[in-house]
């Protein structure tokens, strides 16, 4: 028979009506899924009893993707097709990814979001995340014995609308009903029951495998408000392993190491780091592929010395976040530790010293975010009574506004407004007889449009013609419980309104998602890339034709040998890449040809003008 779980009084569900809800921590390095069973939040394990699912997906032609440990193992020998840290690319275009060169992937710069070329076709970060979420969903459904009602998925507090939308899209692709997105530090605070605690300021110190985040939260009347966030996207527990690895190399002066040796030593570095959490001293022994044997002893004191700079690197963002929030360490009522790397005693003591208090660390730091998300999912799914005093509010992470004349941003919903929220403001026309208005929605704290992030742009047409400043246009912004935005605009005299479904201009559109759900997952993205490629080819072809006919007509007259051959060489380069698949390269070469023909074009223009003017008097021209 089916296995039953204990419900809250009066909340037993009818057979087959269980409200199975989970919390998912979709992490950069590892992901987890948790649920509340028998009144207790627990992380769900895989068949081998492992709680973590490495956020790694490997793609091979004509095969289902491999997710987790199995993918992680082959990462070193199949780097192009094994995607790690995909969270860094969610809702991002190539231009946003400053360190794109440090990843081994074949990026495809596509409109909307960067994509990755794999042996199983081009994948968007949304699809890769969906594959991770699908693995977690399957684990949860096996563990809970039924279909999930919904999930709460956590995102970093600093995620903008585009990144949140991308996360939601990934969940939908994975067949998950998103009950809501929850800020990671808020989830950690909920897991520690701080939402039931006294009001006050809390710091959440999150040192993961490869990222560091510090969030300063204020709890007032059950609402968590994110006062400030800071961090270092390239600092995590892995850097401690790396430091230890370098120390090992210095100590032992090895002969040349193979890739396997590197991996082996890095693993030993990690084991040693973990051992020092429990013991004052550890021994590192390993045999390299060359037969060379390593035997080293490492003490906690040595380890602390060699990693002291890394520890202090985390403290500067903490101070900056506090300064941004206008607070000092004394104002902080509690510090929550998140992320496996916070187990290191050197981190614990550095944080304790900085804040002058022992941080909260009795929950497993790898699981705390997922547990908090599960607790919230349990409430949202209706498994707790309404009179249970649970407040579930969150706030907007960044201000939302629209562009006004002069490239300025008028903020309509300030940051840290509790959501859901709807706010409206009236605007007017700028010119006499203006019958249309372009509405540009932006997110950010800066004053200039160019400094904020563009989320959407649409037009309100059919404004009755009247003098400037007479029309009244009401623009309403609405943010739902997931932190997602919709915008409407209405001209108040005639009632004409733009039927506006604002979508973040980054991330996948709703249509895209549903089409992708229908045709399998790959075609839509390929179409999108193909279209961009086609457009680039058409433009390249047009320019090549135009340049060729210009050369035929005037090339010999207007260009010297060097100039002529430069243009011809540039044309050849462009013509060569047109049949290829790299549309960014085609664009780049098209632009290059445009540049090298600029002087030629200017001379042709001058010549045509001179020819037209030849033999005519100024009077002829004026008449």
């Amino acid at each position, binding site marked *: *028979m*089916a*296995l*039953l*779980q*204990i*419900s*809250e*009084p*009066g*909340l*037993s569900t*009818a*057979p*087959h009506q269980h409200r199975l809800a989970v919390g998912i921590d979709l992490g950069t390095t590892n992901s987890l899924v948790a649920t509340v*069973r*028998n*009144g*207790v939040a627990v992380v*769900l*394990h*895989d*068949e081998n009893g492992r709680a973590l699912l490495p956020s790694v997906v490997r793609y091979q032609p004509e095969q289902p993707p491999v997710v987790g440990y199995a993918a992680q193992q082959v990462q070193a020998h199949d780097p192009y097709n094994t995607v790690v840290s995909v969270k860094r690319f969610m809702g991002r275009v190539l231009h946003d990814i400053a360190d794109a060169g440090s990843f081994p992937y074949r990026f495809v710069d596509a409109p909307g979001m960067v994509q990755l070329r794999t042996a199983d076709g081009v994948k968007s970060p949304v699809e890769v995340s969906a594959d991770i979420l699908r693995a977690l969903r399957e*684990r949860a459904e*096996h*563990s*809970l*014995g039924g279909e999930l009602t919904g999930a709460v998925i956590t995102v970093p507090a600093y995620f903008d609308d585009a990144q949140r939308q991308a996360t939601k899209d990934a969940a939908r692709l994975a067949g998950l009903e998103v009950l809501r997105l929850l800020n990671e530090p808020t989830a950690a605070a909920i897991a520690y029951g701080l939402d039931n605690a006294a009001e006050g300021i809390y710091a959440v110190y999150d040192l993961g495998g490869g990222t560091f985040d510090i969030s300063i939260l204020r709890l007032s009347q059950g609402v968590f408000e994110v006062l400030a966030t800071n961090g270092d996207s390239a600092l995590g527990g892995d850097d401690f392993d790396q430091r230890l690895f370098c120390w090992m190399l210095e100590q032992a002066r090895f002969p040349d190491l193979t890739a396997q040796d590197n991996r082996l030593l890095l693993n030993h570095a990690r084991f040693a780091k973990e051992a020092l959490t429990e013991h004052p001293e550890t021994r590192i022994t390993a045999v390299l592929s060359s037969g060379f044997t390593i035997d080293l002893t490492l003490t906690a004191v040595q380890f602390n010395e060699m990693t002291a700079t890394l520890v202090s690197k985390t403290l500067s963002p903490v101070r900056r976040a506090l300064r941004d929030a206008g607070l000092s360490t004394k104002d902080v009522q509690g510090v929550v530790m998140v992320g496996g790397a916070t187990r290191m005693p050197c981190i614990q003591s550095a944080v304790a010293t900085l804040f002058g208090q022992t941080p909260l660390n009795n929950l497993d730091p790898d699981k705390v975010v997922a547990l908090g998300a599960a607790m919230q999912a349990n409430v949202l799914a209706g498994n707790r009574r309404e009179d249970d005093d649970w407040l579930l509010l969150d706030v907007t992470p960044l201000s939302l506004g629209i562009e006004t004349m002069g490239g300025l941003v008028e903020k309509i919903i300030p940051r840290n407004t509790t959501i859901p929220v709807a706010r409206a403001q009236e605007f007017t026309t700028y010119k006499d007889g203006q019958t249309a208005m372009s509405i540009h929605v932006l997110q950010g704290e800066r004053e200039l449009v160019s400094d904020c992030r563009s989320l959407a742009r649409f037009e309100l047409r059919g404004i009755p013609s009247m003098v400037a400043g007479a029309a009244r246009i009401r623009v309403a912004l609405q943010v739902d419980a997931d932190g997602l935005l919709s915008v409407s605009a209405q001209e108040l005299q005639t009632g004409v309104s733009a039927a506006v479904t604002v979508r973040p201009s980054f991330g996948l559109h709703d249509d895209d998602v549903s089409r992708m759900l229908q045709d399998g997952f790959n075609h839509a993205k390929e179409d999108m890339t193909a279209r961009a490629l086609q457009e680039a080819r058409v433009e390249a072809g047009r320019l090549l034709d135009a340049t060729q006919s210009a050369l035929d007509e005037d090339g010999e007259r207007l260009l010297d040998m060097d100039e002529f051959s430069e243009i011809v060489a540039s044309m050849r380069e462009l013509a060569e890449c047109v049949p290829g698949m790299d549309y960014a390269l085609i664009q780049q070469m098209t632009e290059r040809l445009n540049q090298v023909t600029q002087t030629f074009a200017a001379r042709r223009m001058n010549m045509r003008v001179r020819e037209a003017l030849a033999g005519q008097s100024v009077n002829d021209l004026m008449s």
Partner: protein
Amino acid sequence: MMAITVTEAAARRVSEFIAKRGHGVGLRLGVRTSGCSGMAYKLEFADEIEEGDLTFVDHGVTVLVDAKSLPYLDGMELDFTREGLNEGFKFNNPNVKNSCGCGESFNV
């Protein structure tokens, strides 16, 4: 002799869950008329003993059953078990004649 028993494994889990929940006097078992085969079990935390409740104590766990439900549950054993990735409570009920495929509802 009417009785409901709790296995040691189930008792250990129940005590653990009540301790983590922070409050509660025990476990409430019952049946309701619903589900595809007529009856469905009820398994809830109990915050108070209600009038007409029968109380059983086994392995340190207090089990409350209302008088109407008792005839359907008499002689049953509450067990805690693991099936694959799933784990949870199981009603070993001698009164059941048929149950639906999933076993969540039954008749006597």
